[in-house]
């Protein structure tokens, strides 16, 4: 078996994942590209398990299992953030997020709530940016 084949495949997958993270605008597609990068790392670990002789046998495969669990946790939290973003802004475009804007803090929410003008949407007014959308 020639280990250079899976190694080069993993390197190309990592490069494609990095390209996707930087290129894509939709946040769900960014998460898919992150999954590609995590898979490249897993492939490196499993291949290194065949080439490197370690003290503990199958260390690379055990670490690949750990990375898979980490990816599951990451995708859960990431999708919660994406869905919350969609609920707040009705869009999942990552370059429409104002990085320097003020977050919806508690005082703005609390100030907006007791008026009772919009009882259905209590957190709308706190997270709106100042400018036109």
């Amino acid at each position, binding site marked *: *078996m*020639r280990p*250079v*084949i*899976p*190694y*080069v495949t993993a*390197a*190309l*997958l*990592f*490069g*494609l*994942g*990095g*390209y996707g993270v930087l290129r*894509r*605008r*939709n946040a*769900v*597609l960014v998460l*898919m*590209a992150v*999954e*590609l990068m995590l*898979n490249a790392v897993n*492939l490196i670990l499993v*291949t290194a*398990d*065949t*080439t490197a002789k370690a003290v503990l*046998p*199958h*260390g690379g*495969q*055990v670490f690949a*299992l*750990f990375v*898979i669990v*980490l*990816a*599951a*946790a*990451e*995708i*859960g*939290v990431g*999708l919660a*953030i994406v*869905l919350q973003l*969609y*609920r707040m802004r*009705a869009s999942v475009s990552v*370059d429409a997020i104002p990085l320097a804007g003020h977050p919806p803090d*508690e005082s703005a929410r609390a100030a907006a*709530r*007791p008026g009772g003008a919009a*009882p*259905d*949407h209590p957190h709308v007014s706190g997270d709106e940016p100042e400018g036109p959308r």
Partner: protein
Amino acid sequence: MTAVDALLLALGAVAVGSALLVVATRHLVRAGLYLVVCLGAVAGMYLVLAAELVAWVQVLIYVGAVVVLLLFAVMLTRAPIGASDDLDRPGWPATLIGGGTGLGLAALLIDAYRWTTVQVPEAGTAERLGAQVFGSWVLPFEVLSVLLLSALVGAIVLSRPDIGTTRPARSSTGDGDEVPGERGRSR
């Protein structure tokens, strides 16, 4: 070039090709389905590399759970059916960084391993990997379980906007199941 090498080459070509389609397609749902092909090809490479348990866990968790979650997110964010034109940013820095990273790593690994051969090791069955996980790697395993629990709690807290507020107002319990389209129309 043996049969193992030919299999690895074919599966690697499928994985890289479908990964290219994942980052290049203009259909959101198709990107998820190409991701299934890519992850399945990588699972096939694990099988050829004698990592049985990792291959099946990959099929179960990645193809079974993660891709389904991603497709749920595509549906829940009301992705348009059909091609969308606004999925990409201008791509010169992405091409530069992604291509540079991928080709640089590939050159590094080719230089390190040339065309050498190694023996395919003994299969990483569930018995051997289980002995390792619950023998030498027990502490990382337990830390990982705590991390999974905290990620679960974090996802729940993130998706419920009424948790962080100090005062439970009478109306704030109702916006967890609010339809996003109504908000868009009400502006």
